Structures are given as structure tokens and as C-alpha cells.
């Protein structure tokens, strides 16, 4: 008998009563979930991992237009616009230890980089759950901030697909040609054994992306409850993504900020604060929102959320910071100031 197999389970039986009792109760969170994530500060050497089934991603209005998806990235992100012109089809594969990783699609945008990666086990090999970690460089500079979407297994992709989404901060002023190096490490989830490292090097173009991205200046001010002003600087958007920058001196810590509203065509949008480096703020659109490129204006209301508890300082390794899903009904968000209308023309 190998007692060592039960060391943890035996010891874990003795955890505090309080913890046991908490989990005995029905789970109260995660109903009508709104994804809340601590924004990144300072060096922002962290990333957000979102693991969602496809159905969770789709915006309700987008569902109606499923047949219109023109690219796999568009489908995973729920973008019904034709974004094929944004998308470079790579279909470049690397096989190691019975697992093939294929870099299927790439979108390099003014503010963001999207990579679609699928994995396929060799015929006859058992499909196992994996974790993908990444090391991506653009023109030699490592990208840190990412949102990772993963699909559940499906008949088309039995081992799942990933969309990796990186934000290119203001220091990334890219000029063609852009060289991207992506090294992915795949581990087995159950015991962390490494299956292999998969390296892809390719080029992408910024030229078209820059032409397609509209940037509007704003200057509108939203005042926080303590009188601190947030000045919206600029707003960029295209069919793939939308980003807003603002400035705010000494933003109160330990709170989340969201801008929620709709464009003049009725599409609902939510922008979340992705990063704050005093005084620079960057808001990015959440994937469950959609801003039409044909909209002429968008009305946004700032919300503050302060009930985040211990998630803020979670000790993470150097590769990620996790998302948190809180119940909007339990942790009320507070409206801040009046709604602002931003002209997109």
C-alpha cells in the first residue's frame, strides 16, 4: 500500500469547520454573471484567462446572425460583422508527442492581437484535458496582457480551440513588417506534465488595420463620487474591437470600473477597465458586448464596483491573473455621474 497517495486527501479532511460549512451550502454566486476582473496596474505583467464555452460568449443579438460568421475567431468572439479582411489565415501546424497545434488565424489590430490556435491529438491517442501557456513576442517585445478564450470540446474540435487576445499598449507603435513569435507550452491538466513546446514565427501587416480603425477624440469628463474627474481621451473602434483611453489622477484603489450603455443602433456594450497606470486608463470592450461600426454615437454610463474582497491580491505566478465571476445581483454596482454620449463620426 502506498500511503503517499492519500497524504493530501487525509490531511485535507481536517480543514476548518467554517470552510466545510461554507461549501455545504448551495452556491449563491454566478447567476446572471458579469465578468469582473481586477484591472492591471504598474508593469501589468499579468493576464486574464477566460475559459468559456462558446454559448457563453455570444451576445444575444449576435446569436441571430450566427450564419454570418466569416472566420473562426469571429465565431468564437461572437462578431457577426464580416471580419475576413482583418483576418490572416495561417493554418500553420507543429506536431510534438502526438499533439498537433495549428495556428489557424491571426488578427493584428491597432490595439490588439488575436491568435486562434487549435489542438488535435493523433488518431488513436486519447484526448486529454490540456492547459496552454504562451510566450508571444511582437518585434522582439513580449506581450503580457492577454485574455484567453477556450471552447469546450466539439465534434469539429474534440480537443478544443483557444483564442488568445493581447492588448498592445501605447508603447507599441508598430510599423510593417511586423514579426510575431509565439511559443506555446501545452501541459496535461491532471498532472501538469508537459506535452511539448510549439513555436510559430510569422509576419502580419498593420497597414490595412490602421486604415480600418476609426479614432475619435472626446474630452468629456465623468466625475467620481469623491470629485475625482475622469477625462475620456480617445475612442478607437472597428469591427473586431473597441478601446477607450482616459486619464484620472490617483484613481481610488480596490475598485472596478465599467462603462455600460448602448450605441444609437441599440447594441449594448460594456467596457471594462483593463489597465491603470496613473493617470492613464485603458478600457476595452467586453466580448459579450457589441458596438456596430455603423453607429454614429454611443451613450455610456460609468459604474463602480467595490465588493471584490480577496481576489485583488491573489498570489499568482508570473503567467496569469484569474478572472472572477460575481453575481451582479449580490454585489451591486453603483452608478457614477451622468451618462455621456460620445460621437463616433
Amino acid at each position, binding site marked *: 500500500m502506498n500511503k503517499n497517495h*492519500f497524504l493530501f486527501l487525509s490531511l*485535507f479532511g481536517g480543514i*476548518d469547520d467554517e470552510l466545510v460549512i461554507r461549501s455545504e451550502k448551495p452556491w449563491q454566486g454566478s447567476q446572471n454573471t458579469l465578468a469582473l476582473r481586477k484591472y492591471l496596474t504598474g508593469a501589468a505583467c499579468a493576464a486574464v484567462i477566460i475559459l468559456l*464555452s462558446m454559448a*457563453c460568449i455570444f451576445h444575444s443579438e449576435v446569436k441571430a446572425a450566427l450564419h454570418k460568421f466569416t472566420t473562426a475567431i469571429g465565431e468564437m468572439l461572437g462578431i457577426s460583422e464580416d471580419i475576413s479582411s482583418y483576418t490572416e489565415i495561417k493554418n500553420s501546424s507543429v506536431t510534438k508527442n502526438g499533439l498537433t497545434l495549428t495556428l489557424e488565424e491571426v488578427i493584428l489590430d491597432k490595439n490588439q492581437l488575436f491568435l486562434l490556435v487549435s489542438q488535435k491529438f493523433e488518431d488513436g491517442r486519447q484526448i486529454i484535458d490540456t492547459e496552454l501557456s504562451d510566450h508571444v513576442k511582437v518585434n522582439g517585445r513580449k506581450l503580457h496582457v492577454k485574455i484567453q478564450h477556450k471552447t469546450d470540446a466539439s465534434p469539429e474540435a474534440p480537443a478544443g480551440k483557444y483564442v488568445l487576445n493581447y492588448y498592445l499598449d501605447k508603447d507599441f507603435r508598430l510599423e510593417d513588417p511586423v514579426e510575431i513569435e509565439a511559443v506555446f507550452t501545452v501541459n496535461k491538466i491532471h498532472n501538469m506534465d508537459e506535452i511539448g513546446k510549439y513555436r510559430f514565427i510569422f509576419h502580419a501587416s498593420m497597414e490595412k488595420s490602421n486604415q480600418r480603425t476609426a479614432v475619435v477624440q472626446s474630452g468629456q469628463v465623468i466625475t467620481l463620487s469623491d470629485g475625482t474627474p475622469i477625462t475620456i481621451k480617445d475612442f478607437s473602434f472597428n469591427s473586431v474591437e473597441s478601446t477607450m483611453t482616459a486619464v484620472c489622477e490617483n484613481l481610488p484603489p480596490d475598485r472596478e470600473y465599467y462603462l455600460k450603455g448602448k450605441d444609437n443602433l441599440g447594441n449594448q456594450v460594456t467596457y471594462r477597465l483593463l489597465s491603470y497606470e496613473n493617470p492613464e486608463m485603458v478600457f476595452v470592450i467586453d466580448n459579450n458586448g457589441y458596438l456596430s461600426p455603423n453607429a454614429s454615437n454611443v451613450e455610456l454610463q460609468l459604474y463602480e464596483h467595490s465588493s471584490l474582497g480577496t481576489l485583488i491580491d491573489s498570489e499568482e505566478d508570473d503567467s*496569469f491573473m484569474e478572472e472572477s465571476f460575481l453575481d451582479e445581483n449580490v454585489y451591486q454596482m453603483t452608478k457614477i455621474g451622468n451618462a455621456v454620449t460620445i460621437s463616433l463620426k
Partner: protein
Amino acid sequence: MEDTKIVDLFWNRDEAALEKASSKYTPFCFHIAWNILMNREDSEECVNDTWFAAWRYIPPKKPAVLSSFLGKITRGFAIDKLRKKYASKRTDMHMTSLNILEETQMLNQALKSPLEDHVQEQELLQIINEFLYHLKEKDQDIFIRRYWYMDSIEEIAKRHRNSVSSIKSNLFRTRKKLRKKLMEERYLP
């Protein structure tokens, strides 16, 4: 009957304590044992043993939370049975238990060194408790449902309205963090 009154019955060596505890907590304790063993006979045996163990422990112990106290006893018996099944390579171990054993390998390794170095179990337990209290509520619940209550991944996914792969990844990350924490304790005095 209120828990405090049941505890008083144990404390006063009144055998009615066994009946009262049994009638109130059999479903709770059976569920714990069942999740670990998936065998009716074995689970019932664990639950029956629980009442008599409680009789031996109280007094001198006076549990503040009776449900948790009894649940821990049942879980301990069930883990012992599982260990014996595993040792005798019994084929009736169900997949959830086998998967959990595989998942917790990395944590067993992390615990092995401190225990060999005579770090007291209580100290390690304190580290685990602190680690759990610092987790996000959701991560804490997922981790405890999996490794204390030994729920299947599917049950946890349903509880949290998340996908199965999301729960697996969540557990993976929490295990990794706990392992890191425990590894740091290898050099405890």
C-alpha cells in the same frame, strides 16, 4: 433537535444521542461517504461507525459545529476504506476517486518532504487553511467541493454554471498555487 442539545446528550452519556444524531445527519454523512466510495454497503458502514466514533470523542471534545464534526469523521472512515481498496487493487473504485487521486499527486509530493522532515500535520493544515481563506470565494468553493466533498467535476460545473473545462482549469490553477505554497514550507524549522 438542535445540535447543541444533541451534543449535550453525547456529553451526558445519554444513548439517545446516537439516535438523534443518526436521524438528523444520516443523509448528510451518507452523501459524503457515497461520493468517496460509491458503494451503498461501504457507505452505510462508514455512517454507522460515525455515531460510535462520536460517542467515543464526545467528551472530551465538544464540537462547535456538529454537522462538520460528524462529516469529518465519516469522511475519515471513507478515505480509510478507499485507501484499503486502492492497496488491494480492488476494481470497484469508481472514476471520480481515481481521478482525484491522480489530481492530488502533485500535492502529495509537496507534502511528503515536510512530513518526512517532521513538520507537524497541524502546521501544514494551518498553511492549507490560510491558503483556502485567501482564495476567491468561488475558487475556494470549487476546491473544497472537489477535494473535501469529492464531488465530480460535472457536479461542480453544474453548481457553478460553468463548463467542465473551466472547472478543470480552475482546479488545476488552485492546485498549482497550493503546491507552490507547500513547497515553500519545505524548509520550515
